[in-house]
């Protein structure tokens, strides 16, 4: 039988994969994709608890998370394009203009 615990484990697995992707990859596109993975993991948790408590609030919150994800993707990809125009690279190690 599928319990909330199963869904939380799935969410934890997806979130950890996203964290590993953000921390280890150098390609900025894949880092943005990993952030989307983490947001999906959070959504799974929210909806699992929405189902567990039989309340619709978790699903409303998940809609807001999706909204923020869309805004984040639009702005993030705008930054990627601006950066590519300036430095001709997608490698985050070479973006060190503001690094002390």
């Amino acid at each position, binding site marked *: 039988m599928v319990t909330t615990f199963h869904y939380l484990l799935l969410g934890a697995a997806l979130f950890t994969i996203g964290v590993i992707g953000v*921390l280890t990859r150098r390609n900025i596109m894949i880092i943005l994709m990993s952030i989307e993975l983490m947001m999906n993991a959070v959504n799974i948790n929210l909806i699992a608890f929405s189902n567990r408590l039989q309340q619709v609030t978790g699903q409303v919150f998940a809609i807001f998370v999706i909204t923020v994800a869309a805004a984040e993707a639009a702005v993030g990809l705008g930054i990627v394009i601006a950066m590519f125009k300036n430095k*001709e690279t997608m490698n985050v190690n070479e973006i060190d203009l503001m690094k002390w």
Partner: protein
Amino acid sequence: MLELILFYTFGTIAVVSAILVITRHNVVHSAAFLGATLFAVAGIFLTLHAEFLAGVQVIVYVGGILVLFVFVIMLIAVERSVHERQYNRQWRIALITSAILIVEIAYGLYRGRDSLILPPFVAPPVAAAAAGNSEQVGTALYTSYLLPFEIASILLLVAIVGAVVLAKRRTPAED
């Protein structure tokens, strides 16, 4: 039994494609596997009886965000980055940090395990049973959560304007 099969099918697809997203060298392949993960997560939403969210997931994530990703990948050169080194120099530290995170989450889930088991059957209230999932979400969105909803629309507007300004900014060479 059916929900167990569905959960493990969608869960396996989601996790395996997520691992492929962060390990492929070619960004286009990563985007394709991200699409597979998003579809699988939509299936997970369906098994949780969140039909409206499953539809939103497919339309907004797969139809909007993923297409945006593919557009940007198309605009910038992919060929060169395939042959570059793909992982950071600090990947060992990153993996150690992630292992600590895994242990922390696993400990928290293990301690809270008893309270997270679904009761065998939760009878929904009569009014909730009559209304569909989309209706319930819509009612909550337009009554209790009206202000956050409007703020979210302003956030989207700001994001659109910001993305256009960022992407259209001229480089010094063009001036």
